Protein backbone atom coordinates (compact mmCIF):
# COMPACT_ATOMS: atom_id res chain seq x y z
CA UNK A 1 0.00 0.00 0.00
CA UNK A 2 1.49 3.30 -1.11
CA UNK A 3 1.81 5.68 1.80
CA UNK A 4 3.05 8.53 -0.40
CA UNK A 5 1.27 9.04 -3.68
CA UNK A 6 2.14 11.20 -6.65
CA UNK A 7 -0.77 10.62 -8.96
CA UNK A 8 0.57 12.55 -11.94
CA UNK A 9 3.37 10.60 -13.66
CA UNK A 10 4.19 13.57 -15.86
CA UNK A 11 3.60 17.28 -16.22
CA UNK A 12 4.42 19.63 -19.06
CA UNK A 13 4.67 23.39 -18.51
CA UNK A 14 5.77 26.33 -20.61
CA UNK A 15 8.87 28.25 -19.60
CA UNK A 16 8.03 31.16 -17.33
CA UNK A 17 4.75 29.68 -16.12
CA UNK A 18 4.04 28.05 -12.78
CA UNK A 19 4.63 24.33 -12.22
CA UNK A 20 2.53 22.67 -9.53
CA UNK A 21 3.44 19.16 -8.43
CA UNK A 22 1.12 17.36 -6.04
CA UNK A 23 1.63 14.71 -3.40
CA UNK A 24 -0.78 12.92 -1.07
CA UNK A 25 0.02 10.78 1.95
CA UNK A 26 -1.96 8.34 4.04
CA UNK A 27 0.13 7.86 7.19
CA UNK A 28 -0.94 10.40 9.82
CA UNK A 29 2.35 9.84 11.67
CA UNK A 30 4.28 11.60 8.92
CA UNK A 31 5.43 14.98 10.18
CA UNK A 32 8.31 15.91 7.90
CA UNK A 33 8.14 16.18 4.14
CA UNK A 34 10.76 16.67 1.48
CA UNK A 35 11.01 17.14 -2.26
CA UNK A 36 13.91 15.70 -4.22
CA UNK A 37 14.83 16.36 -7.83
CA UNK A 38 16.47 13.72 -10.02
CA UNK A 39 18.18 14.19 -13.36
CA UNK A 40 18.96 11.17 -15.57
CA UNK A 41 22.07 9.25 -14.53
CA UNK A 42 22.29 11.21 -11.27
CA UNK A 43 21.13 10.53 -7.75
CA UNK A 44 18.23 12.47 -6.21
CA UNK A 45 19.18 15.86 -4.81
CA UNK A 46 17.37 17.62 -2.00
CA UNK A 47 15.21 20.55 -3.05
CA UNK A 48 13.06 21.77 -0.19
CA UNK A 49 11.43 20.46 2.98
CA UNK A 50 8.61 21.33 5.35
CA UNK A 51 7.77 20.35 8.89
CA UNK A 52 4.20 19.64 9.93
CA UNK A 53 4.25 22.66 12.24
CA UNK A 54 4.27 24.87 9.15
CA UNK A 55 1.94 25.15 6.21
CA UNK A 56 4.34 26.86 3.83
CA UNK A 57 8.06 26.99 3.16
CA UNK A 58 9.70 29.07 0.48
CA UNK A 59 13.16 28.97 -1.07
CA UNK A 60 13.67 31.19 -4.06
CA UNK A 61 11.52 29.97 -6.94
CA UNK A 62 10.37 26.93 -4.96
CA UNK A 63 7.51 26.90 -2.46
CA UNK A 64 6.05 23.89 -0.70
CA UNK A 65 2.54 24.02 0.77
CA UNK A 66 1.26 21.54 3.34
CA UNK A 67 -2.41 20.86 4.08
CA UNK A 68 -2.38 18.49 7.04
CA UNK A 69 -6.13 18.01 7.23
CA UNK A 70 -6.19 16.89 3.61
CA UNK A 71 -2.87 15.02 3.92
CA UNK A 72 -1.72 16.85 0.84
CA UNK A 73 1.33 18.82 -0.14
CA UNK A 74 2.31 20.60 -3.29
CA UNK A 75 5.47 22.04 -4.78
CA UNK A 76 5.20 25.29 -6.74
CA UNK A 77 7.96 26.39 -9.09
CA UNK A 78 7.69 29.97 -10.30
CA UNK A 79 8.84 30.84 -12.88
CA UNK A 80 9.59 27.47 -14.43
CA UNK A 81 12.84 27.15 -16.36
CA UNK A 82 14.03 24.51 -18.84
CA UNK A 83 16.67 23.41 -16.32
CA UNK A 84 13.86 22.42 -13.96
CA UNK A 85 13.01 19.51 -16.26
CA UNK A 86 13.59 16.45 -14.10
CA UNK A 87 11.77 13.82 -12.05
CA UNK A 88 10.49 15.19 -8.74
CA UNK A 89 10.01 12.87 -5.78
CA UNK A 90 7.93 13.63 -2.74
CA UNK A 91 9.16 11.93 0.44
CA UNK A 92 7.89 11.73 4.01
CA UNK A 93 9.22 10.80 7.41
CA UNK A 94 7.77 10.35 10.89
CA UNK A 95 8.89 11.37 14.39
CA UNK A 96 10.52 14.63 13.39
CA UNK A 97 12.40 12.98 10.58
CA UNK A 98 13.75 10.04 12.51
CA UNK A 99 12.32 7.29 10.38
CA UNK A 100 13.42 6.25 6.90
CA UNK A 101 12.13 8.36 4.06
CA UNK A 102 9.12 6.98 2.20
CA UNK A 103 9.11 8.13 -1.40
CA UNK A 104 6.37 8.58 -3.94
CA UNK A 105 6.76 7.27 -7.48
CA UNK A 106 7.77 10.65 -8.83
CA UNK A 107 6.46 13.15 -11.36
CA UNK A 108 8.40 13.89 -14.53
CA UNK A 109 8.34 17.63 -15.19
CA UNK A 110 9.08 18.92 -18.67
CA UNK A 111 9.52 22.68 -19.04
CA UNK A 112 9.14 23.69 -22.65
CA UNK A 113 11.00 26.74 -23.94
Amino acid sequence: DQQVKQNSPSLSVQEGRISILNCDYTNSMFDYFLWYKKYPAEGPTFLISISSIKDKNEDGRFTVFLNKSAKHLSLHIVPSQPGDSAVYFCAASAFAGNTPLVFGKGTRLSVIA
Partner: protein
Amino acid sequence: DAGVTQSPTHLIKTRGQQVTLRCSPKSGHDTVSWYQQALGQGPQFIFQYYEEEERQRGNFPDRFSGHQFPNYSSELNVNALLLGDSALYLCASSLTDFYNEKLFFGSGTQLSVL
Protein backbone atom coordinates in the same frame (compact mmCIF):
# COMPACT_ATOMS: atom_id res chain seq x y z
CA ASP B 1 35.05 17.62 -2.09
CA ALA B 2 33.91 14.29 -3.51
CA GLY B 3 30.28 13.47 -3.02
CA VAL B 4 28.86 9.99 -2.62
CA THR B 5 30.52 7.59 -5.02
CA GLN B 6 29.15 4.20 -6.03
CA SER B 7 30.65 1.35 -8.01
CA PRO B 8 30.12 -0.21 -10.38
CA THR B 9 27.86 2.02 -12.45
CA HIS B 10 26.22 -0.88 -14.24
CA LEU B 11 26.15 -4.60 -13.59
CA ILE B 12 24.60 -7.60 -15.33
CA LYS B 13 24.06 -10.84 -13.43
CA THR B 14 22.05 -14.01 -13.90
CA ARG B 15 19.46 -15.50 -11.60
CA GLY B 16 20.90 -17.25 -8.57
CA GLN B 17 24.15 -15.34 -8.59
CA GLN B 18 25.42 -13.06 -5.86
CA VAL B 19 26.35 -9.40 -6.23
CA THR B 20 28.27 -6.82 -4.18
CA LEU B 21 27.77 -3.10 -4.63
CA ARG B 22 30.06 -0.50 -3.09
CA CYS B 23 29.60 2.99 -1.73
CA SER B 24 31.92 5.69 -0.41
CA PRO B 25 30.11 8.36 1.59
CA LYS B 26 30.58 12.09 1.27
CA SER B 27 33.57 13.36 3.20
CA GLY B 28 32.65 13.90 6.84
CA HIS B 29 29.59 11.65 6.77
CA ASP B 30 29.39 8.61 9.01
CA THR B 31 26.02 7.09 8.13
CA VAL B 32 25.20 5.17 4.97
CA SER B 33 21.82 4.01 3.74
CA TRP B 34 20.85 1.94 0.76
CA TYR B 35 17.74 2.33 -1.37
CA GLN B 36 16.32 0.27 -4.20
CA GLN B 37 14.57 2.07 -7.04
CA ALA B 38 12.68 -0.23 -9.35
CA LEU B 39 11.59 1.02 -12.76
CA GLY B 40 8.75 3.51 -12.45
CA GLN B 41 8.93 3.52 -8.65
CA GLY B 42 10.38 5.78 -6.02
CA PRO B 43 13.41 4.78 -3.97
CA GLN B 44 12.63 2.21 -1.28
CA PHE B 45 14.66 2.00 1.93
CA ILE B 46 16.69 -1.19 2.36
CA PHE B 47 18.80 -0.52 5.47
CA GLN B 48 21.05 1.97 7.21
CA TYR B 49 24.53 1.51 8.67
CA TYR B 50 26.10 3.51 11.44
CA GLU B 51 29.21 2.64 13.46
CA GLU B 52 29.59 -0.53 11.38
CA GLU B 53 26.22 -1.87 12.48
CA GLU B 54 22.85 -2.12 10.80
CA ARG B 55 20.71 0.45 12.59
CA GLN B 56 17.42 0.24 10.73
CA ARG B 57 16.05 -2.08 8.08
CA GLY B 58 13.23 -1.81 5.59
CA ASN B 59 10.99 -4.57 4.30
CA PHE B 60 13.61 -6.57 2.42
CA PRO B 61 14.46 -10.28 2.76
CA ASP B 62 17.61 -11.59 4.38
CA ARG B 63 19.10 -12.11 0.92
CA PHE B 64 19.95 -8.44 1.21
CA SER B 65 22.82 -7.80 3.59
CA GLY B 66 25.36 -5.11 4.11
CA HIS B 67 28.50 -4.03 5.78
CA GLN B 68 30.11 -0.80 6.87
CA PHE B 69 33.87 -0.46 7.21
CA PRO B 70 35.85 1.65 9.69
CA ASN B 71 36.34 4.33 7.01
CA TYR B 72 32.51 4.55 6.75
CA SER B 73 32.37 3.05 3.27
CA SER B 74 29.75 0.40 2.76
CA GLU B 75 28.82 -2.64 0.72
CA LEU B 76 25.45 -4.03 -0.24
CA ASN B 77 25.31 -7.76 -0.91
CA VAL B 78 22.44 -9.56 -2.57
CA ASN B 79 22.40 -13.36 -2.66
CA ALA B 80 20.39 -15.73 -4.84
CA LEU B 81 19.44 -12.99 -7.28
CA LEU B 82 15.92 -12.91 -8.65
CA LEU B 83 14.68 -11.20 -11.79
CA GLY B 84 12.78 -8.80 -9.53
CA ASP B 85 16.04 -7.56 -8.03
CA SER B 86 16.72 -5.66 -11.24
CA ALA B 87 16.75 -2.03 -10.18
CA LEU B 88 18.81 1.07 -9.54
CA TYR B 89 20.52 0.78 -6.17
CA LEU B 90 21.17 4.10 -4.51
CA CYS B 91 23.49 4.80 -1.65
CA ALA B 92 22.93 7.86 0.53
CA SER B 93 25.14 9.30 3.22
CA SER B 94 24.64 11.75 6.04
CA LEU B 95 25.70 12.63 9.53
CA THR B 96 23.92 10.75 12.27
CA ASP B 97 20.90 13.09 12.20
CA PHE B 98 19.78 11.16 9.25
CA TYR B 99 16.31 11.46 7.88
CA ASN B 100 16.38 15.04 6.83
CA GLU B 101 17.52 17.21 3.99
CA LYS B 102 21.18 16.51 4.70
CA LEU B 103 20.87 13.22 2.85
CA PHE B 104 23.23 13.00 -0.11
CA PHE B 105 22.67 10.37 -2.79
CA GLY B 106 25.14 8.76 -5.15
CA SER B 107 24.34 8.25 -8.82
CA GLY B 108 23.50 4.61 -8.21
CA THR B 109 24.35 1.18 -9.56
CA GLN B 110 22.03 -0.14 -12.26
CA LEU B 111 21.67 -3.89 -11.68
CA SER B 112 20.16 -6.08 -14.37
CA VAL B 113 19.34 -9.69 -13.52
CA LEU B 114 18.81 -11.96 -16.54
